């Protein structure tokens, strides 16, 4: 499976590069370092299917969806799209006979006509899946090369621009932030979580709401202030009151902007609080 794995990794990296030069942002390929290197049992095959499904239909779904729409029906990418759906359904849902039959038939093809039993059989099945995935990625790479045309790049960018990932990236850019893939995933999860519980009210625009969520999440990590928070609340006479939260926000902002400490900080904070409240 080593050759297929090497090819698969290369295709993923190539596709990520194409996306980077078309859309301005690469696909996250950190998963490659922990991708299953071999399969020797049904459980490991199930794990491979889950990982492949997650990548193809979840993590990279927007890009895969866009590129699939640009390729020809019946090519290796479309074939794989169907295959992974059925395999995952069959493995994780025992009540789908159609999927189950397709799974068994495909696995038998990979094992010279018999159902996989031994570790060698499962290795063959795993190799076949990875080979099919690699072929699908090759088709997508070939399609992505059309990014040499401006119209294609514009269409791709438009496709992904309204995703939570891009919204978080956009707001981070506005805030002058530079996020690691892990940091971005965290904020995307936050935004997605809040959005899933949110009901849009009349007059509200979904994009604006999502951007607000992103802004709040990105700004939720604040640094420390140069004194105990209780001292701030005490100084400003807001301990135990609803105004305490706002006072602490102000305390953080004053320190972030001025960087001053000690008595000078306390005096400025108090003066600013007083001015704002009059």
């Amino acid at each position, binding site marked *: 499976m080593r050759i297929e794995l090497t090819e698969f990794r290369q295709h993923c990296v190539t596709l990520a590069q194409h996306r980077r030069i078309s859309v301005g942002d690469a696909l996250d390929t950190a998963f490659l370092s922990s991708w299953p290197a071999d399969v020797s049992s049904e459980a490991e095959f199930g794990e491979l299917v889950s990982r492949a499904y997650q990548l193809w239909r979840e993590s990279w779904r927007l890009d895969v969806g866009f590129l699939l729409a640009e390729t020809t029906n019946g090519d290796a990418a479309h074939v794989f799209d169907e295959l992974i759906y059925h395999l995952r359904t069959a493995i994780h849902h025992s009540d789908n006979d159609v999927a189950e039959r397709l799974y068994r038939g495909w696995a038998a093809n990979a094992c010279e006509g018999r159902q996989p039993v031994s570790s060698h059989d499962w290795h063959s099945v795993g190799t076949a899946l990875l080979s099919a995935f690699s072929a699908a990625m090759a088709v997508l790479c070939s399609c992505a090369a059309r990014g040499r045309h401006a119209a294609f790049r514009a269409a791709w960018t438009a496709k992904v621009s309204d995703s939570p990932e891009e919204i978080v990236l956009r707001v981070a850019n506005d805030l002058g932030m530079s996020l690691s893939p892990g940091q971005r995933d965290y904020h995307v999860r936050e935004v997605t979580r809040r959005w899933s519980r949110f009901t849009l009210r009349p007059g509200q625009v979904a994009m604006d709401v999502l951007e607000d969520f992103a802004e709040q999440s990105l700004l939720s*990590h604040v640094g420390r202030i140069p004194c105990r928070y209780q001292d701030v609340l005490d100084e400003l006479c807001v301990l135990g009151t609803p105004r305490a939260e706002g006072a602490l926000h102000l305390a953080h902002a004053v320190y972030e902007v001025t960087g001053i400490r000690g008595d000078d900080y306390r005096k400025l904070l108090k003066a600013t609080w007083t001015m704002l409240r009059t």
Partner: protein
Amino acid sequence: MEPEFATLLQRLVEGPAFLLLGQATGDSAGPVPQPVAAGSGGLSADQAYSEHDRTMSAEPVPGWLSDAADYPWNGVFTSRIDSSLPGVFRRDWRRVVPTAQPQLGRHPRSATELQLRYLFGGLGLPEDEWPPADAITEVESRARAAETLNALADTIITPWGVLVIDGYGLDDWLRPQDLYTFVTRLQAHQAHLFSAGEGLLADPFIRAATDRGVLVAHSETFGAVLSALEEAGRLQRASAGRGAQGGRFIPVGDSFAEVDIDTWNRVVGSARPVNTELLEPFTSASSAMRYQRFRNFLGSGDGLPQWKAIASGYNLRRDFEGRLLQRVQSALDELGLPDPIIVGGQTATGKTIALCALALDVARSGRAAVLHRSVRGERPTVADIESYASWADQNYGLPTLLIWDGMVDVDEYYGLQRQLSALGLRVLIVGSCYLPSQHQRRRNLIIVNPALSPTEIRGLAEWLPSFGGSVSDKVVAGLDSSFLAVLYRLLPETEYGLRRGLAQEMRAAEVGMEKLSRTAPQAGGDRLTAVAQALKDAGFNIGELRPTERPHAELIRLSFEERSAAERITSMVLVAGRRGLPLPLELALRVLGREGARHLIDLVKNFDIFRWAEDDNGDQFLGTRTQLEAELLAREDLTVRTEVEVAIQLIANLRPVLSSWGGGEVQFIADLLEKIGPQSDNHRFAPHYLELAQAFAELRQSRRQTNHRLALLEANLTREYVMWAQRDNVIGHTERLALMRNVQRMLEATLEETDAPARSRMNLLVELASAEGAQIFELSAHGDETESSQVLALMSAVTTASLRARALDPENVYPVDVIAWTTRDALRSGMVPDEEKIDLLANAQASLDSLDSDVLSPSQRAKWDLRHVEMAELLNDPAMETRHLIALSENSDPAAYYFLAARAAKADSPDSLQVAVRVLLEAPAEVRADWRCARLLLDLYWQSKTGKPFLRGEREVVAFTADDWEECLAVTDAIPHAAGYDRYRLDFLRGLSLFHRGHYQSSKDVFRQLNEESRDVSSRVISKYLASNPDGTPSRYTGRVMSVSPDGRRGTAWVDQLHTEVPFIPLRFSVSDYRNRHEVLPTFHIAFNMRGAIADPITSRSARIPRPQANAN
């Protein structure tokens, strides 16, 4: 984020970043042995150091150092001495160059070729760079360390850079007082000390530095702070330093290929490979951010290419770009050796952005490896381009597209193309220039119209609104392209302002557009005057951009010295900027001095006319936003006198690098003088050439060091001044002669003492010949016949220098031109005796005839034609009468034989050529050994046998019998000791003849030598002849593959008929076949280029059968 990290972060993002690494490593390693104490404990200094080195090599690298080493530094300075340190910094994406030399060298801020500078010497370095071994050498080493740190503070770090100090302790060889002295030379908040414990902070020098604000202390390690910044989402190491850590990938077909770090470091000094980093557009952005980016793109002007903006489609496409792309794609598809494609036009017509867009379009296609060179810096060097083009061709079969936005003379592009073609490289050059003169215009020139076409205006109407702007309804059809250059000044600063529709700002843009639509697109000053007026009408006063409160009328009367620091900075930037040149930052700082330099950051921040930029090698430049704005301002603030004063100051403060090209500052001065000096169209500076030359002379004398490029400039300026002075008799004859004699002596000394490369030596020799020629002109104009012996001696010197120059570049027109005009001047003087005239004329005529005009650029061809006309007039001299020539020939005068043979060849008879050949063959040996007669004999002989010039055309066949080939060999034997530069022609004929006589090994030996001799010949790899039969048809051969390289670009084939192997290029036979040993090849020809015989597939291009000639045997 902690506020004290804010300044650190800003500098890490904006400016170059340097690490000063102390000797603290951890507890177990122990301190570095002090040199004066090394003798104690029974160990010598060497022994103590070796022990220390072994210990350090065995120690694991501490985590904080490993973290710090990961960062893409622009330079590392260290007080450590161990040899294991380079390994700590070495990475796949970075080469490490350890040194203890204080000199800067090339690219002192490169992140991919990192200079690791040992302040006190290093144990893994050459002996003269080792750490000190006793008290005396310790003092010397401290002085060198101080010199290195001063260079860092004054030059390398720049006002925008940051210095990170880590691993520093009180027992460091760099003592706290030395560190204090050093950091006080830096800007506030520029130096950051990490791992600063209480003990360190308590030191009085460290405390004083922090109190003064020149040192910011942090208790954490730098690695910890970086992690904190990453956690706060403020910085990602992977994208720091312009993503130096990332791979260097270029598109190849539908995939990508990585450029190895050595090839990258080699080529990036000459041109930037267009890799995925440049192809990457902006990430997703809010409309406000998008507008900011768009406005910044418009505002960036002529600085570094705004790749992201162009990759994001922010540029307005002009009509000519489509034609340009088509021509480039066609040229890349052809197999032949192309001419460069030139884009010509006035200032502010969109050439620079169009060339960037072209680079991205072609790179994306994956069909070529693309290099881009912008206006700044040195010329691309052949060796650098060759390394990259070879890498692309050998590994991926890609041709290379070199886009050189040099705005230089068209001849420069032709010259470089010729040099690259001579190496057999598949490189296409696209260049830029101002509008060339009529005689320079050829079909591969694309002229950019300053007026926007109706199609472009319609495009504008869609493009500007997509960024929130609006287009006036009143725009007429003739909108000038300068509108795009000034649009930045007319748009509101924020998108918010745009949306609010602030009346005045919107009106300015619309009025500006309307006014510029009536700007007549005329040449030169009129157009710019109209542009300036249009801006004024739009309510925009460009004068307000200048950092001075003095009105123009007052400022323009002030000398450079009388101006304030801010005004002097402006003057320098405008002098360079109006010519499209960015000013090297270090040079500007040196002219300003330390006091003036303190103004620099504030000026750049507060006055929008200035731009600061850094290129891919970390070199820093100052410039104006656009050349257009610089020109408009310069007209108001600068006179010719002031500009000369600026130029003299810049020359006086040059610091040439110890390399053959002299560094970026030398290149800048050379570029500036190209624009204001004798080679420019601008002769307003002619009265000041001598002052500029004297500035070079003073620099040379004060530094006691001659840079060959500066010597050439000095000589050329002096000579051109003398020519100008002659016309108006500004200085007398004696003084003019004295100046040229000094120049002659200076050039002779430069040639002897400097180690200039071949091309530079050729230029110096041509200038030397010109200086001698200028003396001839001076003497001949003076008309004193007693000086005729001097004239003859000078002509002899001219010939010697010119022949030496031709030996370095046989196809260069300039040495030939010098011989021609000096001969003309000498003969017109009437001071040359008749018996000498013939010799001089023979030199000149033979030189002119020896050039293949097909390899000349348009302007060179025009000059060559002019010299022929002059020569024809001179040949009417009575001394040239036949009876005189015959008399001279009886004394074995080669010049006489030359002309007799040349005349015989032109006689109106069927056997004129044979007669001419006989004249030379029957001449004494010393006549045939003369380079003029030797060349003429070869040319006439070939012409008589084939009816065609020798070595012209491609894949020619000749109807030669065995006797004819023997005769060729006899002719080559009859020409002893042929002129050095011309030897390759003789050897080619010998090699060709030997092959046809069946002496294949001897033929190979001759071509092996010829391969070296012909390195500078542009047609070196062109197949000139095919092995042919006596009936004039090309011979056909059969054979099989013996060896093939994996890329299919090289191989050898066995030839059945010859019983020997010859080289062949499998790809020329088939894209995919003939890769296996013993595979049978289709019938082929054998072609000959300067490298020898090569199997050549039979195609429709093969063999042109010669027309029957009346004189052919």
